């Protein structure tokens, strides 16, 4: 019964989405305010209906309603409650439902918070949002319906893949989708602007908070996935340039570029055409990410051809929206008049360089991910493109980007002074040098480039701090003035600085763990000891244990440092019963200096086990860096200028300017 309610709500939502697509855009063309206003109510109605559908499916999962095919295939009555709930989106059908739910959430947020938007722009934005909903709801209802019943209903479900039964992974997809789908707002704004043919700095100011929110969620979503891979997969790695990772990384790169170019547009009325194009690209890459992971095309071109219904449908959606938006862009972009001029060395110029490097990096990832598929489809030749390729192409682009990063905020708009900026950055340069020397002294060995990498991270961090210090006139003005200035700095300035610090912190972690990771692979018998990075690990044997839905072999390691016991690490090998799968749980001792990471391997002859130890120096800084970036975004979002409607301010300013002339 509950499933039918959900099913019905899902179909109704499609109807409402159709209304949301047609009426507001039509109304905007005719200048009919009543028709335009339908958009807002339709967006709210759609959210309510999809919530009902989603809750319906969740109840089916929680109560283990095995008359639903989707629940049978992905749940099990013995599964812990958390994973019964996360199982709702731990599969194709449910995750698509989550996708449209989040889409509706963003749509209704625009309807709610967009009161200051010009009515025709708002109507067009909601209309475009509605059309995306129509496409995906049709997709769900025709090819991926989570409410399909099964008869006769089995007594037990098949269970959720045990490797996915993990707290971090439970919330990884929702965050990722908040990011993916959040870019749809920027997309809808871009298409709406192209329809109306009007675009101005206020447009950029409306788009930026939405893009920023999407970017924050995507940052955390990707970071969670990386953290999960680090501790769950047992390889000690944190990023693998896997196509699935790349699929989420490309929208992130495009979104990062968009945030920066929209800044230029908001402040200087320049880069309009490019910003609109980026807004379209960011969401198109999200659609492509959805296509890549949903269609099965990544596993192999052949598995795509075997069951093409879903893949072709999403491909069609992608081509329709990307192609449609790009065609509209091509025909209308000429109308967008370019604004402010600027010299190559200027704040604008720095942001253009940022965009150029990030876009090129995104292109490198794009080509590396899709080229093997394209080559195989066209010529039949099979090649592999893996981490060594991406490290060789993506890496070099990041170095100039990071070197240039602190300069950007120190250059003034229109025409900057690079010599003056360098002088203002001398404190940062000093700390960078200090960090390089310290890194050489502490490491003693390892690649000679690594200390320079540490210096780069420090340069970015200190550059961001210097900028805030410079704007507050630190050490150049009396203390009370400095404090007053610090208080009066806009939150967005703090947000940008904090986000940049996050990047620097992440760079430190990446460089340290890549360059100085130590590893030891040994065969250990109970009672034997191994040592790594100053730790002594005594192997005390293996003990069997029983979990709620698995049995495991737990290795016992007594960790000591300088003769004193620090902790015990219990890496284990688990065997889940439904579905039958073996997983490895690493034993990790986290510390500021780095992680001690122990993986228990197979039993060898004569009672010994093969064991792998890692020491990953500063590895946690990678994820701490992403959290700092998230916080930077949060601080920026809390800026008054973004909360208060932009048009009001713009009007006030215009009113001030007129009498002065």
């Amino acid at each position, binding site marked *: 019964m509950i499933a039918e309610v959900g099913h019905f709500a899902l179909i109704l939502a499609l109807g409402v989405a159709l209304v949301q697509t047609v009426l507001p855009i039509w109304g905007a063309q005719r200048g009919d305010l009543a028709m335009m206003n339908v958009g807002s109510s339709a967006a709210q109605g759609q959210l309510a209906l999809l919530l009902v559908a989603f809750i319906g499916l969740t109840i089916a999962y929680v109560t283990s309603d095995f008359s639903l095919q989707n629940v049978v*295939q992905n749940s099990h009555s013995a599964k812990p409650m958390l994973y019964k709930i996360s199982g709702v989106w731990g*599969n*194709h059908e449910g*995750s698509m439902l989550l996708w449209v739910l989040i889409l509706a959430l963003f749509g209704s947020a625009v309807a709610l918070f967009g009161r200051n938007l010009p009515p025709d722009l708002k109507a067009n934005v909601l209309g475009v949002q509605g059309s995306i909903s129509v496409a995906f709801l049709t997709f769900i209802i025709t090819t991926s319906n989570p409410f399909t019943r099964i008869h006769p209903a089995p007594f037990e479900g*098949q269970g959720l*893949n045990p*490797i*996915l039964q993990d707290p971090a992974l439970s919330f990884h997809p929702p965050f990722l989708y908040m990011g993916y789908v959040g870019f749809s707002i920027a997309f809808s704004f871009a298409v709406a602007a192209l329809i109306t043919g009007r675009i101005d700095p206020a447009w950029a100011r409306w788009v930026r908070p939405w893009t920023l929110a999407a970017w924050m969620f995507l940052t955390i979503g990707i970071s969670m*996935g990386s953290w*999960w891979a680090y501790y*769950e*997969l*047992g*390889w000690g790695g944190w990023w*693998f*340039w*896997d*196509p*699935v*990772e790349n699929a989420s990384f490309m929208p992130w790169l495009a979104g990062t570029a968009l945030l920066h170019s929209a800044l230029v547009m908001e402040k200087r009325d320049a880069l309009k055409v490019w910003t609109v194009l980026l807004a379209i690209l960011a969401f198109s890459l999200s659609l492509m990410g959805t296509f890549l*992971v949903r269609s*099965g095309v*990544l*596993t192999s071109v052949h598995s795509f051809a075997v069951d093409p219904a879903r893949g072709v449908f999403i491909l069609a959606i992608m081509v329709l929206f990307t192609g449609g938006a790009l065609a509209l862009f091509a025909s209308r972009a000429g109308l967008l008049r370019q604004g402010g*001029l600027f010299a*190559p060395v200027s704040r604008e110029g720095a942001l*253009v360089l940022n965009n*150029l*490097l990030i*876009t*090129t990096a995104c*292109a*490198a990832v794009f*080509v590396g991910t899709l*080229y093997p598929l394209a*080559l195989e489809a066209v*010529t039949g*030749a*099979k*090649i*592999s*493109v*893996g981490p*060594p*390729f991406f490290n060789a192409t993506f890496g070099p*682009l990041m170095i100039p980007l990071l070197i240039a990063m602190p300069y950007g905020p120190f250059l003034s708009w229109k025409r900057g002074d690079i010599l003056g900026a360098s002088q203002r950055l001398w404190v940062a340069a000093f700390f960078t040098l200090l960090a390089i020397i310290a890194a050489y002294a502490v490491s003693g060995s390892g690649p000679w480039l690594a200390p320079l990498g540490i210096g780069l991270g420090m340069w970015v961090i200190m550059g961001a701090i210097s900028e805030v210090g410079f704007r507050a006139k630190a050490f150049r003005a009396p203390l009370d003035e400095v404090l007053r200035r610090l208080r009066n700095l806009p939150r967005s300035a703090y947000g940008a600085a904090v986000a940049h610090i996050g990047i620097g912190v992440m760079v430190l972690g990446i460089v340290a763990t890549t360059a100085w990771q130590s590893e030891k*692979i*040994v*065969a250990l018998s109970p009672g034997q000891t191994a040592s790594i990075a100053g730790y002594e690990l005594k192997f005390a044997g293996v003990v069997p244990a029983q979990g709620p839905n698995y049995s495991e072999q737990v290795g016992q390691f007594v960790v000591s440092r300088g003769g004193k016991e620090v902790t015990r690490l219990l890496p284990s*090998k688990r065997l889940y019963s439904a*579905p039958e*799968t*073996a*997983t*490895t749980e690493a034993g990790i001792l986290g510390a500021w200096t780095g992680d001690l990471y122990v*993986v228990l*391997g*197979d039993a060898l002859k004569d009672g010994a086990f*093969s064991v*792998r130890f890692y020491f990953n120096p500063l590895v946690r800084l990678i994820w701490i860096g992403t959290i700092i970036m998230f916080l930077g975004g949060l601080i920026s979002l809390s800026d008054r200028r973004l909360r208060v409607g932009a048009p009001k301010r713009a009007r006030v300013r215009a009113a001030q300017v007129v009498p002065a002339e």
Partner: protein
Amino acid sequence: MLRVLLVGIFLAAAPSLPSPALAVQPDEILKDPALEKRARVISRDLRCLVCQNQSIDDSDAPLAKDLRVLVRDRLKKGETNTQVVDFVVSRYGEFVLLKPRFALHTLILWLAAPLIFFIGVFVMFRSYRRRAVEAKESGSKSLSAKEKRDLSKLLKES
């Protein structure tokens, strides 16, 4: 590796999941640390043919183990890194390389990003030049005496 995630979340096809476990086994490790180090460097760039996007250094598949042993055997015979890789490629094809060689069929792969970068630089340069010329033609009129007075008054007030 996140392929696991892909398969699990998106296709719900549990049977094809690789089980995460140890790759390089203690008994495979060469006695000579320098040689072992070279073996590890080589293995990181060779693909486990039966896995998704995993190097033989990371994979616990039997075939990956065979390849690791093969690499070490060739190294022990005194071959250079290039010779070892060439041998593996001659046996298993180019698919085994995680970093494709620069050749005619990988031209686009390797040159796309640099090309996009230089096209970007070119477009930027051209639009800058064009707009600079436009601005000159439309004449950036200097302010009149009254405008200058008004401006300095405004600046003083603020």
